[in-house]
């Protein structure tokens, strides 16, 4: 399969699926408290990114 010839959307979706599958493998080896800590860490990182993006949009609009 030549990925370069696939439309960008399909390539993007395939890459997302691969990423999720790798993460799932990682999750299977983690304990409950490790998973909860991972979720909290990612949640904090998400909040920081969203805040930054919305701030950038706000500044661009001024």
């Amino acid at each position: 399969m030549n990925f370069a010839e696939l439309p960008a959307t399909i390539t993007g979706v395939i890459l997302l699926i691969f990423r999720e599958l790798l993460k799932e493998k990682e999750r299977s080896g983690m304990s409950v408290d490790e998973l909860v800590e991972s979720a909290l860490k990612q949640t904090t990182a998400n909040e920081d990114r969203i805040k930054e993006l919305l701030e950038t949009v706000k500044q661009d609009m001024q």
Partner: protein
Amino acid sequence: MRRQIAILGLLLLTIAGSACDKSKEFAKNADRIAGYVATGIDIAEKDLPSGSNAQIQTLTALRAVNTINGEITAEAKKYISADGKRLELTGVGKDKLLQILASGNTTIQSLLKNEDFINLPDEKRTRIMSTINDLTETFAVMVELVDAVKTK
């Protein structure tokens, strides 16, 4: 495929009936949701026109889902057993988690009805829809898991 995996996961959990399995599935789902939100942010940042209503609305909705998932996870953390292997929920804790989950589901459904989002070009909407569908299914699975966890 995710729906089938989620349903299969639920059936396996019902058969196994193990507190550890249900707790781990719950914790995995919390981590999955955080991951899906991160994916949604990637899509909003790269695929949606910068500063557009669609981008702002999507980021705002993702933020709400993220906050709710953070609340669920922080609440669940209080009930982790000493060995880190299972959740030991009380009746009050269970009710609290279910309330937070119901709120999360409402937030996701509101994004699906948002006109700025509905009017996006098919290609962009498809990628976001896939992520939102994953979120919806995962929240539904989490409700089932919390319901099934035995209380102390």
